[in-house]
């Protein structure tokens, strides 16, 4: 057990800077991927992927939301603005929403939003909606592997980001 208490320790600062520095320098480009997962199905599916040790790239970072219908298009655009290369939204399968109807609204909203992003010229495939149940750990992992592969293929997102965010 190591106990580090004070922030002012120079060694700690150095370690932290080191950690931060390792993020950006001398590394090949890796995509940044934000995944919104509903608490009841997809987040649990991701947990199951974890407990089944079904790996997928570390580029995927999950944000927990109560329901896929909580995801505001603003969040997705914000992610892109800040330099995300892909955004994926996962929810319960239609008909299985914990809140009965949430994902049906999600489906309509995202259909329109994604079509709009396509319309302004953002590559199709940078956004995705997948329905993943709590039992589909394997599917969660497969979906994420596939999504990361597609985003890697598309390369860095240069169209919709604030370019200043990219280092």
């Amino acid at each position, binding site marked *: *057990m190591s106990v580090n208490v004070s922030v002012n320790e120079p060694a700690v600062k150095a370690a932290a800077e080191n950690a931060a520095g390792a993020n950006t320098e001398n590394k090949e480009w890796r995509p940044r991927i*934000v995944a919104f997962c509903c608490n009841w199905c997809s987040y649990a599916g991701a947990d199951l992927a974890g407990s089944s*040790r079904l790996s997928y790239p570390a580029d995927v970072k999950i944000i927990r939301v109560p329901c896929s*219908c*909580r995801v505001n298009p603003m969040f997705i655009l914000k*992610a892109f603005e800040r330099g995300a290369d892909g955004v994926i939204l996962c929810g319960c399968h239609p008909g299985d929403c914990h809140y009965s109807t949430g994902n049906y*609204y999600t489906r309509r909203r995202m259909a329109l939003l994604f079509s709009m992003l396509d319309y302004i010229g953002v590559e199709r495939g940078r956004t995705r909606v997948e329905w993943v149940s709590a039992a589909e750990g394997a599917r969660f992992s497969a979906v994420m592997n596939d999504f990361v592969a597609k985003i890697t293929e598309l390369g860095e997102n240069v169209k919709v980001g604030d370019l200043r965010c990219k280092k």
Partner: protein
Amino acid sequence: MQRLGVFVCWCGSNIAATVDVDRVVAEAKVQPGVVFAQDYQYMCSEAGQNIIKDAIKQYGLNGIVVCSCSPRMHEATFRKAAEAAGLNPYMVEIANIREHCSWIHKDKEAGTEKACVLMRAAVAKVLLNTPLKAGESKVVKRALVIGGGIAGIQTALDIADAGFPVDIVEKNATIGGRMAQLDKTFPTLDCSSCILTPKMVEAKTNENIRLITYAEVEEVSGFVGSFKAKIRKKARFVKEDVCTGCGVCMSKCPSKKGLNEFNMGLNNRPAIYIPFAQAIPNVAVIDKTQCIKLNTGKCGLCEKVCTAGAIDYTQQDEFIEEEYGAIVMATGFRPIDASKFDEYSYSTCKDVVTSLELERIMNAAGPTGGVLLRPSDGKHPHSIVFVQCVGSRDVSGRGKPYCSKICCMYTAKHAMLIRDKYPDVEVHVFYIDVRTPGKNFDEFYRRAAEQYDVDYIKGQVGKVWEEDGHLVVRGVDLIANEQIVLNTDMVVLATAIEPDPTARKVANMLTASIDTNDFITEAHPKLRPVESPTAGIFLSGVCQGPKDIPETVSQAGAAASKVIGLLSKNKLTTNPCVAHSDELLCNGCSCCEKVCPYGAISYDTHLINDHGVKETRRVALVNEALCQGCGACTVVCPSGAMDLKGFSNKQIMAEVEAICL
């Protein structure tokens, strides 16, 4: 000033093997607002929790992040620990660095980097957390059961047995429902009345049950734990507590033209009547459309012959207002109207009957005293044709798209009973499929077909008509692949069942959702089959979907156990992560109200002080006891007036930014 603490768990080697916890701690320490960071082998252990508690006290932490396993695993544990140390439990965020990180990434560098990002996102979020307090609401320890059929009776009995008072509201003059009309039940062929009536008596005598018959629920307001209902008790014109049920009035009543509802209109009953001999309460009721006294002012015979003095022609509808903690819908079903199916000539030929009518014809207390006779001339039939799926599995729009589930079995029952009692009667059954999934069901059906020689014909009936005093049935035999024409004496239609029409009205009142067929929707089709999505509303019996008696009884018991679970709580704590509307931003457009699955949003028009400008505005109000926190409303709100506590727009955007940093 934020004073955050970050706690990084090793989870033995589960996390520490692929995540450099020291680096996560070091990174945590340089996050804005973080004043303390520490790692430990098992944060969830007592010692680990003590580290958290001590740090909260020692450093005056006002928010913590635990980097550990999934929040679905230990969020509650860490919230409790925080609370014990005096920190609001909702000032805790979990960074899931096990299931979402260490367990799936073999590369320690990548795993550590990701763990740092997840920690950073959680810190960014907790910076914006606000202390939340779970609301409390009272639980009125009384349940309301709407519908007094077998479903309602069983639910009420089970709730009453657990010691809670229950009111059954039944729209008819007696409880018993459809099951009381049945003759025998499949697959055991025991007498329906023999098993139902003792339960009806039990419901009457149980001191925790109050029967409110001949009554309808008129209004319901409130929410789980404290509903308020207004019940209209229709005038019976008979004093319920005085009537002895002797039946003298019935025999003396000169108006005998009313159709006997209990016998499906196959015979008549007097204007003053007791629905059937075993009715509970065994009290007469006057049909005001038929009563001569009530319509002309003359007669009054029943009043004269009633030795108990129970008749009261001046009786008015009464209203009962009561509070309930839980409401169970047990509104049941009815057969659909067979007259829309012209091809079966139901409305023109008396000898074409529905299965429920046949049920009454075969019943000893029925219009024929249990002797199988043709309704047209009262003669013994020599041949009967049963037609299955009349209006079930029908996508033409005339019937119902679903399978009514019980018809295959009751048709087999009818066929078998007739063949058993009257071996001279030929029985043919036209069917699409015979569906027998149930304990001893297929055996039962096979017995009908094999031992009792019932002629099962796979195919549908195209037309039924009357010719020379008998019926002619033209149908198709799909196995022989030929048209067949049968001469017969009676045709029995296995009509589809549909939810009782009151279900829609009641569901609307309770904001319980219904499907396109008017069946009440369950909160989850598999995992919460006896609950409605609206908290505190439970489902019992066929109002949820077609089912037979054993299924109904088990569902009734399940609904009761859910009610008991609810009523045994003294207070309900509500999820504090609920929607909240900023009335200064609200446009009053009602979009949020329309997407809310729980009816938790209402509108109120009141005076608002918007930075000194006083205006009367229509604004959204969230009922925190009803809101389940899905957030559907937040996205339809263009102004962002509607936000979700614990998952606010700003919090989620802060997480997004932290991840994309």
